[in-house]
């Protein structure tokens, strides 16, 4: 396995956001994490990225335990998170946003990598020197993914990438994710759009109140009544 999470616990004060979660991603695999709002999906991804402190458990990436390493070290070793809400830097230009993505890359290839992203996303290239705030929602998501790609990740985690996008853009987004994956990038995907996520993932986990409620292949989960329960149950609790 490329990523192995074992017994992961995250607490915010009295709130036990992630409870003893075990999760793994094989090289080149697409794995999805499903669950209602507040199930702990974002917290789980942030904990793997090192952006949220954990209170227990281990995170092993490519055979090395990384749970005590800071975010920068994890980014360097190949874990990138495209955060919820995209979080692009609106006061920086489009090109500067991409360069921030390459922050941990010290090699001379950065410039070529940036040009490659611009070739892939001509809409971004046309606005490379504009403030990123002028981009549309879809373009911002492309920028957020492009920015994450510049860190040369081996595992890309995406938190609700389809949020706020039109159906056509969601379609394009999932095509892009599939294409990145076909080039060998592993994907850990958190999505509200359960249907799309299960179509593209090979395996998945269902989180409810911070616990893994169900896991299995995408097909198994799609047929599993516990998936619907996880959403309905959390709604009852809320």
């Amino acid at each position: 396995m490329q990523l192995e999470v074992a017994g992961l616990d995250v607490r915010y004060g009295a709130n036990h956001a992630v409870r003893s979660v075990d999760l793994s991603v094989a090289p080149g695999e697409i794995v999805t994490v499903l669950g209602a709002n507040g199930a702990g999906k974002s917290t789980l991804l942030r904990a793997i990225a090192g952006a949220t402190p954990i209170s227990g458990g281990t995170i092993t990436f490519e055979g090395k335990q990384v749970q005590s390493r800071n975010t920068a070290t994890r980014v360097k070793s190949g874990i990138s998170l495209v955060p919820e809400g995209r979080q692009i830097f609106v006061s920086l230009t489009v090109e500067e946003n991409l360069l921030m993505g390459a922050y941990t890359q010290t090699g001379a290839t950065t410039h070529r990598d940036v040009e490659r992203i611009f070739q892939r996303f001509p809409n971004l290239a046309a606005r490379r020197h504009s403030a990123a705030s002028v981009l549309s929602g879809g373009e911002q998501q492309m920028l957020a993914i492009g920015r994450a790609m510049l860190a040369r990740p081996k595992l890309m985690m995406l938190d609700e990438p389809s949020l706020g996008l039109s159906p056509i853009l969601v379609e394009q987004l999932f095509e892009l994710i599939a294409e990145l994956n076909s080039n060998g990038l592993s994907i850990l995907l958190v999505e509200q759009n359960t249907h799309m996520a299960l179509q593209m993932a090979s395996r998945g986990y269902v989180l409810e109140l911070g616990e893994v409620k169900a896991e299995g292949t995408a097909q198994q989960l799609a047929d599993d009544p516990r998936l619907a329960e996880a959403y309905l149950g959390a709604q009852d609790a809320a």
Partner: protein
Amino acid sequence: MLLVQQVLNGLLLGGIYVGVAVAFTLTIGILNFLNFTIPVLFMLAGMVGWSLSVYGLPFGLSDPLGWAPSLAIGILCAIGASLLVERFTYRYFKAKHGDATEHAIPLVSSLGFLLIFEYLVLIAHGSDSQAFRTPFADLNWRVAGLIISIPQVISLAVSLGIVAGLSLLLTRSRIGRALRATAENPDAATLMGVEVNRIVPVVFVLTGLLCGLAGALFAVNYGEVSPYMGDNVGTKAIAGMVIGGLGSVWGAIAGGLIVGLTETLSIHFFGATSVQISVWGLLLVLLLLRPQGLFGHNAIGKGKF
């Protein structure tokens, strides 16, 4: 012609405010921390510079130094003091209590540092204003009826240099981009691999450098230093920062110049007593019309750490 002269004077005064206003805006934007020691860093550069130029190094280590090395050491002292503040207001409490800014601890302890540094200087040299002498203090250029003093020309050149250098640093360098990204969204910057804890001392070094340079400019330009010289400049620089928009470096540059111009033009048209009313009145009107300042983003300053 008098008006042109006043505009020139206003830009020079504004150039001094710019350095201090940028220092304020960097710490607010990046750390969400109103650093009260900034006026005293400005004062330290001037007073240490003056002291060295009159007495030489302490403990009789040297004869009185020239004006330039004196001020250079003054600026280094301001940087050193700024790092001391970082170590003991920011880093210590953050390490000890986690989210230090939530407790307003850096704010209060930086106020403590302000008073400690100010009273150390008062104990050493008393509260009187001191004349700072440069060999060219009385040299003037007369160009087309304008009187331009050599110190003013130097000040203008240094102010422009500060602005140019800072804008190059912020837009062209990797660390400059990281500073701006961290100022806007420290969480996202962390996800890019920026080690925010390593950026923090850089902010304090820049703070000390900018305030020190501004203090040195003040000493050269006005030929006078005092333990209280930072107070007026500090409040005006805060006004400039707010006018430009919290956390925006371009805003602080524009705001500093606007405050300097407002000040000298207000003296020109309404007399010396009108200065505070003009500057703060302008600030209030601007805040009513544009609460985020000229260049500010609404989101900046929220959700830091």
